[in-house]
């Protein structure tokens, strides 16, 4: 049985209109004679949202007792038994009370999809695991219900429901998001313009990365599936950039890391650090201390430190560039070459030749002594 089509409506915060849009598209599908049913809807007492749901069939919720309180949850068995062509299931990050089939609603959705039913669902960006810390730092608010990023990655379509922070605050003030008594508290806490602006940026980037990651996946499958390798090579380079910095466990690499991080910040992209470690050589003493320092710096900056054992720096770097989809490669300045090393082609040229077309190589000069190099 073919897996159902999965579409996720992603928003920066509550009230941007994810559920509304999901219902709107569900209605359009129903009007096009598709069998559509609401698996679970959380209208949050929003009149406009409830109005969109009118006329759509709703699979009845089931009553569950949790901590001596009756709660209503999605009836997974009911949805599977009803087997609509399209199920609308709100809030995929929701945690189910103990005793149900799955701990999380996105796991329920996976079962619905596996049954060949198409699913439309919704989620806010702060629920994504990898962004949870960043969003908490930006807004000071941490959400408990998180979902792995792979959930977003598994969607066939991700639709960003975008709204300017000012428009969302206006909606909030007009009572379209929360009831009157909660508005002022919301405005002075989570729904501050600067919070919303940061969340909006995070959401936009997340969707851009999803598009990018799907494009790269497509790129690889094209290379595998067709004899015309030129077709894949002709696909335009990444929409978003991705930086890879070649580092060594030495203090001078920190400058390279800082530079690379600054560039990554400007481009709004991720940063990977790569140390190609000679095979079999134990990491100890000062080198171990420097690796720890690099790891610490990477963690502070939110960069990823990769350590690859390989006896060929260029081959290892080229392999990582392909695997990570890097578009920029940053290297430190090499030592003045002596002896037979002079006959060898310089590192940047070798890297340019070994990496896919379109990957730029940038050299970061040493500031201090010229004691370290390739």
């Amino acid at each position, binding site marked *: 049985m073919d897996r159902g089509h999965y579409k996720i409506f992603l928003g920066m915060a509550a009230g941007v209109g994810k559920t509304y849009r999901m219902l709107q598209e569900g209605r359009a599908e129903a009007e096009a004679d598709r069998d559509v049913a609401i698996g679970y809807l959380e209208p949050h007492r929003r009149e406009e949202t409830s109005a969109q749901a009118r006329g759509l069939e709703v699979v009845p919720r089931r009553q569950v007792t949790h901590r001596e309180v009756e709660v209503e949850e999605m009836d997974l068995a009911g949805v599977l038994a009803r087997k609509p062509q399209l199920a609308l299931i709100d809030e995929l990050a929701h945690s189910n009370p103990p005793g149900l089939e799955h701990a999380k609603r996105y796991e329920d959705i996976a079962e619905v999809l596996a049954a060949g039913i198409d699913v439309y669902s919704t989620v806010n960006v702060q629920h994504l695991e990898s962004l949870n810390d960043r969003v*908490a*730092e930006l807004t000071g608010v941490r959400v408990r219900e998180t979902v792995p990023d792979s959930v977003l990655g598994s969607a066939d379509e991700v639709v960003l429901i975008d709204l300017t922070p000012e428009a969302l605050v206006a909606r909030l003030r007009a009572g379209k998001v929360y009831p009157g008594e909660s508005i002022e508290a919301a405005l002075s806490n989570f729904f501050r313009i600067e919070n919303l602006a940061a969340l909006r940026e995070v959401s936009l980037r997340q969707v851009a990365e999803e598009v990018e990651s799907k494009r790269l996946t497509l790129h690889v499958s094209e290379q595998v599936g067709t004899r015309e390798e030129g077709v894949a090579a002709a696909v335009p380079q990444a929409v978003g950039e991705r930086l890879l910095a070649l580092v060594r466990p030495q*203090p001078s690499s920190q*400058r390279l890391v800082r530079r690379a991080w600054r560039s990554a*910040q400007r481009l709004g992209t991720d940063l990977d650090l790569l140390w190609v470690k000679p095979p079999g050589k134990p990491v100890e003493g000062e080198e171990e201390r420097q690796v720890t320092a690099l790891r*610490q710096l990477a963690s502070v900056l939110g960069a990823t430190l990769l350590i690859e054992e390989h006896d060929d720096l260029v081959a290892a770097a080229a392999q990582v560039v392909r695997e990570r989809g890097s578009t920029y490669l940053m290297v430190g300045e090499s030592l003045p070459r002596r002896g037979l090393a002079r006959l060898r082609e310089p590192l940047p040229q070798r890297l340019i030749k070994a990496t896919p077309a379109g990957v730029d190589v940038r050299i970061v000069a040493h500031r201090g*002594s010229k004691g370290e190099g390739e």
Partner: protein
Amino acid sequence: MTPERIGIVVALILGLAGGYQLARARRRGKRSERPQEVHQILLPFTGTEISRRAVDAALRLARAEDATLMPAYLAAVPKQLPLDCAIPIEAARAMPMLEAIEQRAAGQGVPVDARVERGRSYRHALSRLLDHESFDRVVVSAGSTGAAGLSGEDLVWLLDKAPAEVLILRPGPEDRRILAA
């Protein structure tokens, strides 16, 4: 080829190999003679500014003692976040200051090995740094203390805990920002 010539060729090869091994052993010997102890001067700082006088004092000491300067930015991570989480906002403050210190150090030929240390408070971050780094001196500027930096109590604590000489610089009118993040 006569047996004599074969003997000469073999002797020549053995001689060359022996010479190469001898040279390698001497080079290794020289390396192991280097002192293992790393002389480092710690310069902890917080917030968005650091006194130029503190940086210069640390650099003067580092030059005089042929030591490495270890500027360390101390970041306080809010309790609701994991201690090992990425801190882009703090990093955006720290990186330009570390860059500026490194630039100044490079001008005076002092090697730099920077750190960014996280903790629940500045003192906690400093304590974590003391746990896993070794150094001979600590230079702190009393001018940078206050709500945004290390308090007087923190300095007393540092004097008590730091396994090194602690140099606390008296605030001076010539204290100036070297960088504001």
